[in-house]
């Protein structure tokens, strides 16, 4: 946060971004003239369902293509990349945590995490030491590594998802309502573990949720309707 990069280049910079699921101008769901997220900033993003949150996340991840405008992540413009480059970029620079079902049920926990390394063509650390450290922070026993993911509790699965999201030391972590399937105690634990892990790595966090109780720990709370000029009810993709 203190380094010069924070000021000079934001982690995420969105300019003149529009997106529609089809060619019609009237169907635009995202229209963001300008939006920045600073390096290592933790952003709480909220908005009613259908306001385009998921669409925005997909655009940042490169799984949807912007209709117009630019999305820069660490100064790399996603809109200028081929889909293959975007896939590679995502593997290396972005960690994703879903609401639930983060893990492939038939693979072991270790293989689920190793998958993230597999798709990153340039893995930067050996798996084992990382796991030992991450599992300690996340209060996960090492013994679950060889169990199939389907045998884990939901809380454990979400925590394994954090570990996986962090594996490649991504610049950005995207969490899409990761706590909504957890009970209150688990939620609190999950949040503190997430924050601890992210602070260790100095990653930027975009956290999407309806639950404003969680918002207080974040650096910035953003309502999508404040940045998105398109108002109205869009079905989230």
């Amino acid at each position, binding site marked *: 946060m203190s380094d010069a990069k924070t000021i000079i280049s934001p982690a995420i910079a969105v300019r003149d971004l529009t997106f529609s699921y089809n060619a019609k101008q009237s169907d635009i769901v995202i229209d963001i003239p300008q939006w920045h997220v600073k390096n290592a900033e933790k952003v709480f993003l909220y908005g009613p369902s259908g306001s385009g949150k998921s669409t925005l996340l997909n655009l940042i991840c490169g799984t949807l293509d912007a209709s117009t405008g630019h999305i820069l992540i660490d100064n790399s413009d996603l809109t200028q990349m081929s889909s293959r480059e975007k896939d590679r970029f995502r593997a290396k620079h972005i960690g994703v945590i879903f609401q639930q079902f983060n893990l*492939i049920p038939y693979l072991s926990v270790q293989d689920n995490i190793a998958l993230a390394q597999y798709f990153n063509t340039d893995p930067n650390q050996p798996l084992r030491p990382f796991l030992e450290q991450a599992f300690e922070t996340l209060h996960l026993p090492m013994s679950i590594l060889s169990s199939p993911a389907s045998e884990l509790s939901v809380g454990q699965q979400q925590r394994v998802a954090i570990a996986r999201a962090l594996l490649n030391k991504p610049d950005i972590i995207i969490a899409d309502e990761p706590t909504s399937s957890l009970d209150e105690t688990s939620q609190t634990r999950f949040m503190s573990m997430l924050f601890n892990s992210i602070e260790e790595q100095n990653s930027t966090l975009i956290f999407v949720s309806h639950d404003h109780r969680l918002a207080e720990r974040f650096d910035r709370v953003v309502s999508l309707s404040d940045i998105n000029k398109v108002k109205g009810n869009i079905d989230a993709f």
Partner: protein
Amino acid sequence: MLFKLAFQSLLSRKYTVLLTVFTLVISIAMLFSVNHLRTQAKASFERNISGVDLILSSRDGDISILLGSVFHLTPLQGSVKWSTYQHFNAHPLVSWAVPFTLGDSHKGFTVVGTSASYFEHFQFGNREALSFHEGQPFSYQSEAVLGHKVAKQLGYTLHQNIVISHGTGSVSFSHHSDHPVNVVGILNPTGTPVDESIYVSLATIEAMHPAATQVTTALSRIGRKTNTSSSKTASQSHHDHEHEHEHEHEHEHEHEHEHQAEQVTEHHATTPTKISGIFLGLATPIATLRLQNEVNQFEHDAVEAIIPGVALNQLWQLVATGEAILLVISGIILISSLFGMATMLLASMKERQRELAILRALGAGPKTLFIMLQLEACLLSIFSIIVAYALVQGILVAVTPLVATHFGLYLSPVIAITDIVLMGAIVLGMTALIAILPSISAYNQALHTSLSKR
């Protein structure tokens, strides 16, 4: 990693996957066994004769000559003059000539009249010579050598006397009971018609048919006792009987068989009047076509020569159609079971949307997912190939001895590894081709899967 992913993914759906493997195994096993039988049948077929460069016989057509002389399936219609044998036996291009006469049988087994050098020159399989299980070649008149199956099936042993019948049917009304032959040798099994043949000298045959070697009917036999007087002269002196059939059938040799048997060595019958054909071995194989040509244009006798390999091939072409149809059918079965597999994979895509979303989020591109589906299909296929191979191999080991004893078909119990590799590659290629359908579905689904699917 992708391999592991594909493998684990298959494991997680073991019931549908097992059923798919089951159908694949059946169809691949079918393909393997049909192909094995096909190549083995051909090999078994081609092993019937070897080392003979030309077969000379009357002009019956290539396949008829082959069927008659090698397979003993159809009677040879015409005959070859003894002088023709003498001519080609002395021919400079000919290294050896073995005459043979067909037309008699014993309890359904063909009796071949030939010279003792037959055992030396006739070969089967991959130039394997005939060998004796017991005894030795015949050297005197009224001695016989039995094919392996003849001895085994009829329970014959050395020194047994057997009676040869006229004609080739298993039920003959005309027996040469006055000329029993003595078994002096039993051949080792060959897996060819040799096993089902009885070999005697030409002289023995001649003695049984004192004058008419070719044409005798039961009807004429009925009348034979009416004229017994002129038999001796006729039976020994005529070299060309073509105009004398009527007389010859009436010849009676009952009262002369005693001393005929003793006369073997100097007996006139060692130079028979007519034979069915000649097996020829040439000094150099290059001369084959030249000599064949010469035989076909031989002026003194209406004969032709066939090259056994060529005729076998022609004959095989007739069989090959059926064999090709079998292969096509098993190919179709294979394709349909591969489509079954494609259907299974396609159907699985629906329940794997979450999986795709996760993989996409981790950075997997549509191509990766395409490859993953292909891998799954190929893994199924490879596994099925291995199981099918083991299955067919096991069945072959169990069944080939039975086939050999019951059908006289000597199949190799071992599937050629090159065949397996070749067909495995074909099966795998087809798998990859057909698996394009579910793979494209995975590709498209990946393109349209975004991260937060609910």
